[in-house]
């Protein structure tokens, strides 16, 4: 097939023709164009009552897949979204504008990052961003298959090649940088802070799709399905799992699973605590905290918490759960129905929670941020939390790859979303 043939399909009808034909439609259908336009603006389209045999067949064949939300005034059982995040009228959230830290042009040169933009495929830029404890930024420039190292102020420091065909995940710690290609090469590459590859590990088959690469003092961790975490031995491959255990690729030692029920994300670098976080639109978030015995690697349950991200909007899914210094946790989610405001479209809520004695987060957030998700290309997670609690938002535009800095503002009263405001440049510029 030629490129031309792909582009030639479905040509838009000339406007004049559409208007002429629409007059015919007015005579034949019970739905008028003005009605349609009116209904469109109100978001409650009504449909002609004319029924044909084809229609009947369609309804019979697709009875179970009927879309209740499209029916006039439809609020069928599928649309109901009950639970603690049930939407209710509330203030329109203020979208944080952030402050521009750096804008890297698209390209292959120093200080540039790659953009892949197939006509039929995923438009993607760098697929991961991480912040080291000292404030340096590491960008996984997936298209150029390299790492881009930036100083805390965003100035370019270095490019490090990564010999992986499809690098997608990134983690950093005091020892170095970890890059994971879970789909094509199925390898984890470890680099020191000089950019030298210190290890290249082939992964065994993991149960589930990879959702994160995390770094701890005991080694990097690979998370699958947002519920199982595999601790990686830098020298021997995967040796331990907080879920089910697995073998090293060379057939080496097999370490018994800690426990499958209490799988979870590390809550600190020392891997002394983990949290199993689950989310369901109906029941909300549940965080089960556990203490990890450093000798036996057995988990001891500490408690269960049910924090709420947003009091006024339903959440579609969680995006990330990040521990930050000072005994806090940041949880972000995507809103089920992004909210338009004068500052932009609030699609993501990021909330900071204080942790209780049992290691679990408080029920209500100490502060919240609202972000848009208007990225022109896929850039991995839509926000990243720095160790010091700042929120960085990678964003692709047609001109380049931006990193915006956001700060949490204190939230004087729970649910008062208007109190969250964008930080001033003086506040966030390093």
């Amino acid at each position: 097939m030629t490129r031309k043939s792909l582009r030639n399909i479905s040509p838009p009808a000339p406007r004049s023709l559409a208007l002429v034909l629409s007059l015919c439609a007015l005579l034949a259908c019970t739905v008028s164009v003005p009605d349609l336009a009116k209904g469109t603006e109100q978001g409650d389209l009504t449909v002609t009552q004319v029924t044909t045999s084809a229609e009947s067949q369609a309804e019979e064949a697709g009875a179970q897949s009927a879309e209740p939300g499209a029916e006039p005034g439809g609020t069928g059982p599928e649309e109901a979204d009950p639970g603690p995040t049930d939407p209710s009228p509330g203030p329109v959230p203020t979208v944080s504008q952030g402050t521009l830290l750096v804008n890297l042009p698209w390209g292959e040169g120093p200080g540039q990052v790659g953009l892949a933009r197939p006509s039929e495929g995923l438009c993607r830029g760098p697929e991961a961003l991480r912040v080291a404890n000292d404030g340096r930024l590491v960008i996984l420039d997936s298209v150029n298959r390299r790492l881009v190292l930036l100083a805390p102020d965003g100035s370019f420091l270095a490019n490090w090649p990564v010999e992986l065909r499809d690098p997608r995940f990134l983690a950093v710690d005091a020892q170095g940088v970890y890059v994971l290609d879970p789909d094509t090469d199925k390898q984890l590459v470890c680099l020191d802070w000089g950019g030298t590859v210190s290890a290249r590990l082939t992964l065994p088959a993991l149960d589930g799709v990879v959702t994160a690469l995390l770094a701890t003092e005991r080694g990097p961790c690979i998370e699958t399905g947002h519920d199982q975490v595999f601790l990686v031995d830098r020298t021997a491959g995967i040796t331990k799992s907080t879920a089910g255990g697995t073998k090293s690729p060379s057939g080496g030692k097999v370490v018994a699973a800690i426990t499958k029920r209490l799988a979870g994300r590390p809550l600190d670098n020392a891997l002394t605590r983990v949290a199993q976080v689950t989310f369901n639109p109906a029941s909300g978030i549940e965080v089960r905290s556990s203490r990890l015995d450093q000798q036996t690697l057995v988990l001891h349950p500490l408690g269960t918490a049910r924090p709420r991200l947003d009091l006024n909007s339903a959440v579609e899914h969680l995006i990330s759960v990040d521990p930050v210094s000072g005994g806090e946790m940041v949880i972000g989610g995507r809103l089920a129905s992004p909210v338009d405001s004068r500052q932009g479209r609030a699609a993501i809520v990021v909330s900071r929670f204080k942790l209780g004695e049992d290691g679990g987060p408080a029920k209500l957030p100490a502060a919240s941020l609202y972000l848009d998700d208007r990225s022109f290309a896929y850039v991995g997670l839509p926000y990243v939390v720095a160790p010091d609690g700042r929120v960085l938002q990678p964003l692709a535009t047609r001109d380049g790859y931006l990193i915006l800095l956001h700060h949490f503002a204190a939230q004087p009263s729970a649910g008062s979303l208007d109190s969250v405001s964008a930080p001033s440049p003086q506040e966030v510029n390093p």
Partner: protein
Amino acid sequence: MRLQLRALLRTDSLNSLASRKTALVALALGGLTALTGLLLPANPAWAAIPTLTRAEIIARAESALATNYTWGRESWTPDSPGTAGPDCSGYALKCWEVPQTLLYQEEQGVNSNFSPRYTSYSFYNCLGPWYALSSRSLLKQGDVLAKHDGDSGHVVIYASGDAWNSPIIYEAPGSGLTVRRVSRYLGSEYRPLRRNYVVDSPIILDNPTAKSIGGSDVGGNWTRSTSVSGYHGDNYQVRAATTGTAWARWTPRFPTSGAYDIYMRWTAASDRASGALVTVNTPSGQYKRIVNQRVNGSTWYSLGRYTFAAGYSPTAGSLTLYATGADGYVIADAVMFVPAQ
């Protein structure tokens, strides 16, 4: 006609100018059709698509994993990692089996690309037999999400939500990359879409998994037929007895590990095989069964209970029917996998 109008009007984002134009054109065409007394769909292909179960869509999606993204392509050889695979929209339209013209057929030996075909632009703007969902919270297995920004677009197939309800998807992402099942953040620009004639059901695979794309899910020449009534779906596949290679395979994606009751369906007749060989391929080995297709037609015939591991495995999670060595026509109609209570 009404079907098309509903498909178009079921979008929740007609507030865009492009969508309004589309709706106007659709209404206008509908009006003309009504005036002339014709109540046929403007595009007959829309009414010609078969009913699919969600399990069938997912089984097809699984069969393309690890093939190589190939721009402009919508075919692949099932379960053949490293070979040429589809681009994103080719992947979706094949899994959905939504041809744009009636000329599009997938019969044995026909493995060519075709034009015109649906693209990400078509998916995003609902220019085919599907409709937009009003919310992503309504997504079910086998639905798709599509985006298009004027020059570039992407289509992914929704598999499920994970422990955070984050979407797990199937996609053909781009050149140099492979078809995959991944977790990916999908921004607000992705529109949720549902194919017409998709039904929720137990795991029912109608005809062999990949519908004879010329690949390994069907060996030998099987043809489609509707000669004997009582088949599941729109037709069945038939193969005359042979001494050569002739087999058909059904491979579902098992949602959980455990025991499943397996049922098979055929249309019975006196010229059928009286002892067709069936193998049930499980993690613990292969179990052989014999079915008499001269009787017990048009019913779900029990083949017993077997234990499978979660996931997709043509070698250890499938059922194969052989026409090799049979004494009559062998019918490959449908197979159902029901989780044991």
